[in-house]
C-alpha cells in the first residue's frame, strides 16, 4: 500500500479537485441558517486545493494524497449535511465555518489557553517523571525501600488522582502548585512501576561483567542498572504522558485563569460547542505533538534498542 500510494499521483490530484468542489459548494449553495464566515471558509478550502495542487511534486506530501482526498470528502459532506441541509441535531453538531469562526474571533484566548496548558503539562509531567523515576530506582535497587514503597504504590497508584484533589488543595497553598502536583502524581505512578520493573529485570550478568572489572555499587546503578532499564522507563513515560493529558481538564478546574481544559469546560457551561471543539482540536494537536516529541527523544536516547512501541 505504502508503495502504491507513494507512487500514484491520482489521489492527490483528485483530492485537490475535491477541495475545489468543497470550496464551490460552500460558496454557491445557500446556507440553511445564519452561519458566520461562510465565504472565508470557502476561501480556506480553495487555499487547500491550491496548496495540494502545487505540492504534487513532493514525495512526502504525495504519500498522504489519499488522506487529502478523504479529508476533502469529509469536510464537503459535513458542510452540505450541516450548513446547507441542517440534518444533524444542533447545537452538538456545528458547521465547519462555525469552527473557523471561533479560531478567527477567539484566537488570542485560545493561544493563551494553550500556553497555560502547556506550562501546566510540561511542569507537572517532568516533575512526575523525576519523582516516579527516583521511586522506581529505589524500589528496584533497595529491598528495604521496596518493602515500604511497594504496598503504597499498589494501593495508591491506580487511583484516579482527582480523588486527591481536596486533600492536595487543603495542604498546598498555591492552586497552581496544586495543579502541577496533581499532574505530577498522575505521571509518577506509571514511571515508578516501569522503572522498578526495568531495574528488577536487568540481566544479572551485566552486573557480573562490571563487577569483575572492579565496579562499585554507584557505578552499577548509574551505568548498568539505569541504562539497562531505560526502555522500560520510556514505556512508563509514554503512559505517564497519556495520564497527564487526562488530568489536564481536572487540574485546570483549580482556580486557573486560562487553559485548554478550562476553556473547554467554560464553553461547555455555555453549551458553546464550536468553541469547545476548537479547543479540542488544539488540544489534539498539542497532545500528538508532545507524543511525537517524546518519541523523538526516545529514538535518540535508545537508538540501540531495536523494537519498541511505535508511534
Amino acid at each position, binding site marked *: 500500500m505504502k508503495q502504491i500510494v507513494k507512487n500514484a499521483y491520482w489521489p492527490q490530484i483528485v483530492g485537490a479537485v475535491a477541495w475545489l468542489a468543497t470550496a464551490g459548494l460552500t460558496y454557491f449553495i445557500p446556507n440553511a441558517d445564519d452561519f458566520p464566515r461562510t465565504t472565508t471558509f470557502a476561501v480556506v478550502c480553495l487555499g487547500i486545493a491550491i496548496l495540494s495542487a502545487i505540492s504534487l511534486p513532493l514525495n512526502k506530501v504525495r504519500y498522504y494524497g489519499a488522506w487529502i482526498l478523504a479529508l476533502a470528502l469529509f469536510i464537503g459532506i459535513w458542510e452540505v449535511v450541516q450548513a446547507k441541509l441542517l440534518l444533524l441535531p444542533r447545537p452538538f453538531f456545528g458547521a465547519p465555518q462555525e469552527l473557523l469562526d471561533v479560531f478567527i474571533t477567539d484566537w488570542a484566548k485560545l493561544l493563551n489557553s494553550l500556553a497555560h496548558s502547556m506550562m501546566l503539562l510540561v511542569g507537572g509531567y517532568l516533575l512526575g517523571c523525576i519523582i516516579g523515576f527516583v521511586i522506581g530506582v529505589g524500589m528496584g535497587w533497595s529491598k528495604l525501600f521496596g518493602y515500604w514503597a511497594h504496598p503504597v504504590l499498589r494501593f495508591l497508584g491506580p487511583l484516579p488522582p482527582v480523588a486527591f484533589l481536596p486533600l492536595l488543595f487543603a495542604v498546598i497553598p498555591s492552586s497552581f502548585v496544586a495543579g502541577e502536583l496533581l499532574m505530577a502524581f498522575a505521571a509518577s505512578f506509571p514511571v515508578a512501576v516501569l522503572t522498578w520493573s526495568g531495574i528488577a529485570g536487568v*540481566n544479572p*550478568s*551485566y552486573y*557480573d*561483567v*562490571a*563487577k*569483575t*572489572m*572492579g*565496579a562499585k555499587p554507584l*557505578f552499577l546503578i548509574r*551505568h*548498568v542498572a539505569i*541504562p*539497562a532499564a*531505560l526502555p522500560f522507563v520510556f514505556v512508563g513515560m509514554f503512559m505517564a504522558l497519556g495520564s497527564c493529558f487526562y488530568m489536564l481538564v481536572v487540574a485546570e478546574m483549580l482556580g486557573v485563569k486560562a487553559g485548554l481544559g478550562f476553556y473547554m469546560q467554560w464553553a461547555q457551561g455555555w453549551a458553546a460547542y464550536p468553541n469547545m471543539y476548537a479547543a479540542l482540536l488544539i488540544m489534539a494537536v498539542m497532545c500528538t505533538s508532545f507524543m511525537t516529541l517524546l518519541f523523538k527523544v526516545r529514538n535518540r536516547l*535508545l*537508538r*540501540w*534498542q*531495536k523494537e519498541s512501541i511505535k508511534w
Partner: protein
Amino acid sequence: MVDSLVKQQKIEITNVSHSYSLDDHDLPVLEEIDLTIEPNEFVVILGPSGCGKSTLLRMVAGLERPEQGSIKANGEEIIAADPSRIVVFQDPTLFPWLTVRQNVELGFKIQKKKDDKAISDMLEMIGLAGFDNAYPSQLSGGMAQRVALARALVNDPSVLILDEPLGKLDSLTRITMQKELVNLWRNKQFTGLMVTHDIEEALLLATRIIVMRQRPAHIIGEFKLDMDYPRHRDSEELLKIRREIFGLLGHKSDW
C-alpha cells in the same frame, strides 16, 4: 583482596564442592575439585555440557563462593571480584546501550583510565576496526563474542578467565583468534584458565588440559602439553592425546 598490581597470580583450588538448590532438591555441581594453576600456565578445561565448568570459573573470578573448600589467589582467599582477574563470559553480554568502542572501554571507565590508542589497537586486533560506533544489536554473534574478548583483554589482567570464548566464531576467524590468544598469552604473561568444548582448540592452546566428568564435575584426567607454539593440528602427538580424551569422554574411537 588481591592487589591489582600483582602481575603474577597462582590460583589454588582446594577440595572445592558446590551444589545448587533446585525446586527443593539439591543439585550437586562440583565435587572435590583440586587444581593448582601456576603463573604463566594456560589451563584448559574440557567436560560435558552442564557439568559445572562455568560454575568453577565464576568462583575463581570471585562472583560466587564455594560451599566447601577454598579458592586462593597467591595464598589469599578469593572473596570478591577483582579487576586483576578478568572474565570472558560464555555469552558475550555486551551492554546493548554502549557502542562497540564504549563496550571495550568499559574497564577503563570503571578504573577512570583513558587510553584511546589501546582501544583502537584492540579493535584492530579483533578485526572490528571500522565498527567503533556500531551497537551490539548490529553485530553478528561472532562479532559480539570478539568484542567481549577485546573488552577483557584490553584490561591487561594478570589472570584471564575464558568461558568458551570462541564458541560462536566460524572456523576461519576461530583459527585467527586462537593464534592471537596464544601470542597475547606469551607476550603479556597472564595466567590463563579457559573452558572450551572444542578438543582441538584445547590441544592447540593449552599447557595443561583438565578433563571433567558429567555433573557433579570431578577431574578425571589431566594432560600436560609441553610442545612449542605454533602447534600443528595434524601432528601425531596431538592426535594421540585427542584419541585419549575422546576415550575419557566416553566416545569410542570409531569417530
